[in-house]
């Protein structure tokens, strides 16, 4: 049944899907959605449209375009570095080195192309460029697949009964799907991570004012997973107007040198219920952990001392469970400041 309210909510639904609504307004919108089939269908349609938009952007740049761009960048940066003195490394030791990626990308291009393939554009009047070959498909395709998988899931609609009215069971179903959506949001953020904004664990601890709970940054995850190091952290907005802290780690589980990414999300469990029906409950020591798979990634969720933790990775369930259970108790860079940060959390305003 359509009411005049629907028009008012039309714009809010978009903002809800964008994760930009304040929690109070989100409740109003969800309340309307529970009662209005038309707006539910509209929201589902909006999500489907976004999914298709994303698909329309998946195609990587053509290989010859890439080749020319990389060549331009290569010559520009070579010319630059030849004329400048070496600069001291300002980046902390925590940071993952990305040097040589441009060289590697250009070198990859030189690996395997038919000799007749020329990267020069038709009617290109620019000076002859260095001969570059087709960019290696394998790594680009792997990234693309992971990204598609994550985003198809984001395009997933709430599966709601089509009755115009909803009883309490249906409302719980709605909120359960929203819980699962939160977990899938996290997994999508892990799968296609935004770059960290802070690499200093102490500064990451300051995200507390946005997240609403203490953000302890374990410098090392448990040793069982092999050597780990902290890459950096940032805030991520989550559907419904909330924010979580995203801590990115790299783990080297075996000695063959393969590095795996592990992302730990820290959030306020009172505001965000994160979970999914398919997760199994288990105990690690005295901590209860939910583990399972979501959208192809290994996930583990727990709470400790009023702080929610969700971890996404490619690790096996046992290791995931151990890692996330250990988080609350692991030595952290900011653990000696936790008392201070509790006090300041109460003093500062809650929501930016």
């Amino acid at each position, binding site marked *: 049944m359509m009411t005049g309210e629907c*028009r008012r909510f039309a714009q809010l639904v978009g903002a809800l899907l964008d994760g930009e609504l304040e929690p109070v307004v989100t409740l109003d919108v969800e309340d309307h959605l529970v009662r209005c089939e*038309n707006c539910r269908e509209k929201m589902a349609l909006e999500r489907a449209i976004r999914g298709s938009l994303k698909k329309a952007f998946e195609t990587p740049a053509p290989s010859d375009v890439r080749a020319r761009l990389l060549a331009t960048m290569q010559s*520009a940066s070579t*010319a*630059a*570095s030849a004329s400048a003195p*070496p600069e001291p490394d300002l980046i902390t030791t925590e940071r993952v080195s990305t040097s040589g990626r*441009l060289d590697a990308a250009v070198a990859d291009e030189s690996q395997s192309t038919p000799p007749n393939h020329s990267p020069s*554009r038709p009617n290109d009047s620019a000076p002859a460029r260095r001969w570059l070959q087709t960019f290696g498909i394998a790594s680009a395709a792997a990234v693309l697949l992971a990204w598609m998988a994550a985003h198809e899931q984001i395009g997933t609609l709430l599966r709601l009964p089509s009755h115009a009215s909803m009883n309490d069971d249906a409302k719980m179903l709605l909120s359960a799907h929203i819980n699962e959506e939160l977990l899938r949001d996290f997994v999508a953020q892990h799968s296609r991570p935004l*770059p960290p904004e802070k690499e200093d664990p102490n500064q990451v601890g300051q995200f507390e004012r946005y997240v609403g709970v203490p953000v302890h940054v374990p410098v090392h995850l448990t040793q069982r997973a092999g050597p780990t190091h902290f890459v950096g952290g940032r805030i991520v907005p989550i559907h419904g107007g909330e924010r979580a802290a995203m801590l990115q780690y790299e783990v080297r589980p075996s000695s063959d040198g393969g590095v795996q990414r592990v992302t730990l999300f820290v959030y306020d469990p009172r505001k965000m219920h994160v979970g999914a029906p398919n997760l199994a409950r288990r105990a690690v020591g005295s901590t209860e952990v939910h583990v399972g798979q979501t959208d192809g990634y290994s996930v583990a969720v727990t709470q400790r001392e009023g702080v929610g933790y969700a971890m996404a990775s490619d690790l096996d369930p046992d290791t995931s469970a151990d890692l996330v259970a250990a988080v609350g108790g692991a030595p952290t860079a900011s653990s000696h400041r936790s008392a201070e940060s509790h006090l300041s959390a109460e003093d500062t305003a809650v929501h930016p």
Partner: protein
Amino acid sequence: MKTPDDTDPTSVHASELGCSEPAPHSRFADELVPHLDALFAMAKRLTRSTTEAEDLVQDTVLKAMRSEDHYRPGTNLKAWLYRILTNTFINKHRRGGLERTVLEGPDSDPLVDGWVSASSMRQLRNPEEHALRPIVESEVQRALDELPTDFKLAVILCDVEEFTYEEIAKIMGCPVGTVMSRLHRGRRLLQRSLYSHAVAIGILPSEPMTNVSEPTDLNAFRAKKSRGAA
């Protein structure tokens, strides 16, 4: 206003900062490489031409490398790059910034104002796949391409690249409220496009603009009238 060799690529107006030296080392260039595909995809949608898109991305990337000093490490590099791309595009293709007026027709929202039933909306998408039916999906690209530039930008930056409203405001150089308005109107135009297309190819029944359907003859009209509006 903006001179071709303006050194701060993130400001639309001429900058008073004077540094135009190239980046001292190539590590910054490494950080730009992962964004090439996305930048190109955006450029292609803005310019509607592969050659112009390549030019736009090349200009963007070279400007970015020359302006490494203007980038604050640890902040959102992608947003910074998109800002440069947007400004470069505006300067090349439009004199007075982004379009201000949009012809939109009546201020109505087909999916909310009662034109389109819930079941029709469901028809546009595939319930099992949670995506649009392929025949409608291909229409999305065309509908997007036809949006006015400022709506197109907002929709791409939000729905595809998933920037926050704040980030989009910085990239487009306008207030957050304007971003939200452009998003809402752009999405509405997209939806209306899809709806029209679906009707045109016969996927959806053509639902009339009011809730009362056209009578075929006087008797039918009277009969309908006596049944009353639904």
